[in-house]
């Protein structure tokens, strides 16, 4: 089905460069309010979570759109808004479970992540890979690996403890 945006929130340093490159790439303007991706922060706990469109298979925004302005583009596995059809009713903004559909108060239109036509700039600029662009079926592999590493480490520790007992 192609690549998807994979977010590893624990890696995010909270720098928000993704927000700036997103708005400059799409609009030629630096303005976090125009970004398709946004880092949500709980500063008093040091918690940063980048939020963007999940390009849902069964996308609520697509279903609710009264003028059928939203459709799936299977070639890039993304959900797209046809700005010519969009009437700016913001029903999609209200229904998106991730808050990933945005409304631009200057142009008065909704906007969302379009994966930069296959070269997501947020991924390109994120050195720590908190945002990555990977094949959909590989997203869980890295998580499996890190969980497996923990099990492996625990097993080694247990073996050491056991040998110390003897």
């Amino acid at each position, binding site marked *: 089905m192609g690549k998807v945006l994979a977010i590893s929130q624990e890696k995010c*340093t909270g720098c928000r460069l993704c927000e700036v490159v997103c708005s400059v790439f799409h609009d*030629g303007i630096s303005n976090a309010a125009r970004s398709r991706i946004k880092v949500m922060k709980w500063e008093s706990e*040091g918690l940063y979570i980048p939020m963007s469109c999940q390009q849902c298979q069964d996308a609520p925004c697509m279903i609710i759109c009264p003028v059928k302005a939203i459709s799936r583009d299977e070639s890039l596995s993304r959900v797209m808004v046809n700005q010519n059809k969009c009437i700016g009713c913001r029903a999609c903004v209200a229904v998106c479970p991730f808050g990933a559909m945005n409304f631009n108060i200057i142009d008065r239109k909704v906007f969302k992540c379009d994966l930069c036509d296959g070269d997501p*700039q947020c991924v390109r600029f994120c050195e720590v890979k908190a945002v990555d662009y990977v094949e959909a079926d590989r997203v869980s592999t890295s998580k499996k690996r890190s969980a497996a590493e923990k099990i492996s480490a625990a097993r080694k520790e247990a073996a050491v403890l056991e040998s110390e007992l003897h």
Partner: protein
Amino acid sequence: MALNRKIAYIDLSTGKIEIKPIPIDVRRKFLGGRGLDAYLLYNHTEKGCNPLGPKNTLMVSGGILTATLASATARTHVMAKSPLGGMIGSANMGGFFAPELAWAGFHHLVIKGKAEKPVYLWIHNGKIEIRDARHLWGKTTTETQWAIREELGDDDIKSMVIGPAGENLVRFANVMTGIKNSGGRTGMGAVMGSKNLKAIAARGTLDIKIAHPKEALEYNKRFIDQITSAKVNQTQGALGTPFIWGATNSWGGVRCRNFQYNQELYCDEIEPEAIDEVCTETMGPDHMAGCFGCQVHCRAKYKIPTGPYAGVYDEGPEYTSQGAFCGEPDCRSIETLLTGNHLVDQWGMDNLETGSIISWAMELYELGILGSKETDGLDLRFGNDEALLEMVRRICFREGWLGDTLAEGGIIASEKIGKNSFDYLIQVKGVSNLHSDERGTPALALNIATASRGSDHLRSRPAIDLYHLPEGVLRKIYGTPVPYDGPLSSEHTEYIGKPWQVFWQENCYMAVDCLGICKYHTVFLGATLPNFEDWPKVLYYNTGLEFTPREIWDIAARCNMIERLFNLREGLIREDLYRGDMLNHRYFDEPTRRGAPDVVGRVIDREKFKKMVDEFYEHKGLDQNGIPKPETLKRLGLEKEPSHLL
């Protein structure tokens, strides 16, 4: 676009607010950030004004590139006459405030007068409002920020605030944003406090049009690759600035027991790796955070592991906290380090100055110059962790005779304490030195002696002097954008050629501070990082303004000269120990006791030091008294200052 960001003049006495554009010809002379702030300070303060009185003027700014697509344009600059030494006051901090201020429509704020009651400024999409802050008075730095968000109903508001130390006019109170980003030096928090100004809150969604977006994106990518490929930045990104303290301590370049020693022994608990372990244990393996747009991410996240503050979240600690709460007071506990760091963050005081002044008092106590009467019974000897942290509290809240006295800063405190206490105060222009020892490194000694804001490493330190780079490499760096064919030496214990390096770095750091980017993105700790040759492109792609490397150099020299003019107007005298380009006698008279073979046993040679200052003045175009020659002022276009262009 970046160039249509405004300047606002705010009079807190009358409540009058005036908003003006910043003309392009002013940009071409001073760019923005610290450089333009220095111009504004020179033009908007009266000679000899009381730094804590209503006539002092407070400047707050972002750089010309703030919030554009230049890497790490996170820096906020704050400037006023310093209540610490009476010379130029200047502090610079990372975080997210300046970009938010730029998105709200402003690059520069000029704040005058004094509010009748506590207030804060609310800056939102081109509008500025002065709001009541009586309910915020007394709150810590983070409590204040969160309360403003709650009150205005927007979690994206970024504020720069003062804590109780600023309210109590501690002369080295800082301004803060976020958890730990601090505009630490020279008491800018006390200036805010003296104006009854608790905070400046900003929120903006105004477009900043990028002149050449495609090129700006591509160039920024190249810039980031260059910056993150430097080994020093990779290490910073893993361990933060504690790695510098650890590395410097290994050869004997840090300060211990108020300059009695230049190396801390048996301090495994406060080494960078040990701090990293606590961060990993309490926050997980990915515990580094970054400022706005920066890929270096040198800020560690941690929770205090033990003690009365166990489980409390904070960020850092930095080199200066290791110096302030470990090396200088000779304490070696990670609990003390992380707790001390947390206290100064919450109360809003400069960790560097706090640690230095307490360590000075500790030496005075051990010498008998201070007794238990003055300390109200506190056993203020070196290595007493509890006394150290208690003293931090007493200074912040001005409790007891000594707390109240030390809150006045070193110079006033030395007058109150009397005897020969001043002889032990390691300061320049009233400002304590970074917790580093420069007796083995003449270039660094010249840097702290001549830095405009007082003893300081971030104004002109040629840190790469320690790397023993081949002369050819040094020539490549220091030979542009203006040709230099004088001597240069790879040897860090040498005196020759160092004045040019300090002069070059002074212009380099000023340029960076005008652009609004972080010093980890230029020739500070990494010799391969961008400088004058790269900035014209970043400026052009983002703002459309064209400059040559030489023009940026000239702007930096002009801005540095304005700072010089300000200091001269406030009474700078070359060899004056209180307000001159001069070092404490211990640099010349007491040899270093520890360190690597080429460091131990060293002092700064008085005559050679004098010659370095002579040469440095010559490079800057100053006469032998440190006063600019008429032709220098003419060349820099400063012969008619103050010229009141803004």
